[in-house]
């Protein structure tokens, strides 16, 4: 009956109630959205790579190395020589070493030159290995394996032919169009930058650069396909290496050895450590966003309270009447609190509903444009406790009008 009284009273003031309900809904939507995306990107970041003990590149900043080798963001400054790769790979403590070669692109997607080992050793999330949705790894020089998003966005099927571009700009004009690659495999989606990558063999990359010098195509070059296959396509350098070690215990020792490598200035990083550094940088932005949305929410709470407060003046007769029929003064306190609670609960439901609708629509966009895999299930423990906090906060702020109602109820007017 008391719940009914609160509900009917809210319904009776539809106009102002709906407005403050909307403000509250929007603020809860923003709050939940920011928190959810924050959580998911963090998960995304930490899911990007796993099972790789060290990433090795030419000496640069560790974030820079991480960004270009794993996230395919930015450009490598220097390469490391093939001899260095062989030296590291033959180290007894190193279980496996996979070379990565970056620098080309296809319609805005990065091209990664590597070896077949990449598909066996690279893993993401919880030690999940790469799976082929269709086809298999590359075996021929001009084979290419596509990440899930590349295939989906560009509509490639197995057997399709495509040309790689020199450089990494989406509109690169210098196409290696004389030597097309054939799609032999398409990877299953991973929710990591792998989805945005085309994978070719190191030899394939060598082959398309064989008659290029300093990034410019040599005029009059007439090497035929047959000659190419025969030529020894041994790369002289690679961009980075990913390593797996025999024992995790030796990680720091191997790292130090690589960092002190005499022949060439190298940098070895632990991806987990670099990821958390990256995360800390992102964290500042995201905490700011969260703070702003919390402030927006508090503003909405205050809006609801202002609405309730002004309603008390209109409801003087009602309040007196309740007193006359035996309601204690504190009943008015709880009645107003109950109304605030209803508004908060309804806003939570509406805000959450709005968010799930938006996530369904935004999911593909975020995945396609930012490689962010944002799940649509945001009702995790984290967000549920956020909603609980939201409800507690609005009940707290409603103490102001509730107290005013209580005071009103103690004054007798007739």
């Amino acid at each position, binding site marked *: 009956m008391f719940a009914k009284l609160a509900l*009917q009273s809210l*319904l*009776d003031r539809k106009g102002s109630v709906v407005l403050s309900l909307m403000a509250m809904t929007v603020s809860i939507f923003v709050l939940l959205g920011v928190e959810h995306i924050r959580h998911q990107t963090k998960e995304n970041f930490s899911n990007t790579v796993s099972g790789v003990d060290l990433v090795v590149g030419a000496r640069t900043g560790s974030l820079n190395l991480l960004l270009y080798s794993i996230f395919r963001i930015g450009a490598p400054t220097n390469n490391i020589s093939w001899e260095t790769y062989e030296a590291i790979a033959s180290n007894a403590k190193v279980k496996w070493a996979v070379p990565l070669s970056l620098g080309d692109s296809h319609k805005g997607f990065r091209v990664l030159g590597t070896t077949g080992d990449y598909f066996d050793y690279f893993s993401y999330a919880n030690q999940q290995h790469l799976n082929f949705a269709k086809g298999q790894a590359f075996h021929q020089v001009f084979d290419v394996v596509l990440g899930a998003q590349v295939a989906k966005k560009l509509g490639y099927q197995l057997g399709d032919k495509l040309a790689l571009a020199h450089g990494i700009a989406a509109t690169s004009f210098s196409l290696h169009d004389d030597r097309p690659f054939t799609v032999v495999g398409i990877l299953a989606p991973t929710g990591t930058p792998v989805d945005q990558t085309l994978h070719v063999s190191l030899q394939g990359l060598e082959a398309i650069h064989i008659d290029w010098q300093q990034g410019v195509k040599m005029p009059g070059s007439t090497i035929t396909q047959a000659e190419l296959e025969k030529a020894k396509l041994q790369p002289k350098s690679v961009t980075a290496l990913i390593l797996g070690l025999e024992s995790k215990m030796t990680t720091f020792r191997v790292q130090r050895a690589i960092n002190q490598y005499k022949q060439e200035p190298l940098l070895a990083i632990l991806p987990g450590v670099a990821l958390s550094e990256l995360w800390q940088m992102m964290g500042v932005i995201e905490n700011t966003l969260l703070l702003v949305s919390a402030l927006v929410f508090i503003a909405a709470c205050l809006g609801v309270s202002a609405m309730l407060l002004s309603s008390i003046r209109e409801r003087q007769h*009602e309040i007196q009447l309740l007193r006359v*029929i035996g309601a204690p003064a504190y009943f008015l306190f709880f009645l107003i609190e109950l109304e605030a609670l209803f508004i908060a609960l309804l806003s939570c439901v509406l805000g959450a509903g709005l968010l799930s609708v938006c996530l369904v629509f935004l999911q593909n966009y975020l995945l396609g444009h930012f490689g962010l895999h944002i799940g649509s299930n945001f009702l995790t423990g984290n967000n549920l406790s956020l909603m609980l906090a939201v409800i507690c906060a609005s009940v707290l702020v409603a103490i102001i009008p509730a107290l005013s109602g209580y005071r009103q109820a103690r004054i*007798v007017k007739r």
Partner: protein
Amino acid sequence: MAIDLLNVRFHYPQQPNHEVLNIPLWTLPVGEQVFIHGPSGGGKSTLLSVLSGLLIPDEGQVSIFGQRLDQMPNRRRNQFRANHIGYVFQQFNLIPYLNALDNIQLASRFAQRKKAPVLLGDIKKLLTDLNISASDWHKPARALSIGQQQRVAIARALINKPELLIADEPTSSLDPFNKEAFMALLMSMVSENGISLVFVSHDLSLSHYFNRVESLNVINRCGDSP
């Protein structure tokens, strides 16, 4: 005694120099109905608020059915009001957005009945007795005519089977026809159930419904020397 007032003095805190009530002695036997008349602003409503325990006098004793209202803790006083006292005003007797049934049910929620809980059937019977047709039971109170609202107000006031009914100019917003109908209903309900009634109004034409008619000026010393 239903009501026993002794040396009751009251002024509103906002007006410290203006004493509204000063009643040396006034009683109402159980089951009696009294009509108290007096000019507007004479303190009739204030007296009724003191009788129902909404206002506590500065001095003196207020006993309702032998219970000292002025000495009760707040909680008990609220409870006592809900259980033993019915109230009908000139207007604003009902929560405007609740329908007749809900208004009456709400009043029953604040009372602690040792007797059987108030059933919907009781409410419907009461409404029927008060000539409210079933088609109007589910309309929000504000959609009812004033005459209907006042009759629902009687039902609201009687639902907890109070021993004392307090009526504060309940007919002042009614037209003559509705006024007579209302009075007839009220008086029959009250005498049927043996309820003590304090009825205040400035309208002396209503006094013929009562055996006991008093002027507030006589009861209240304040009126003498303003």
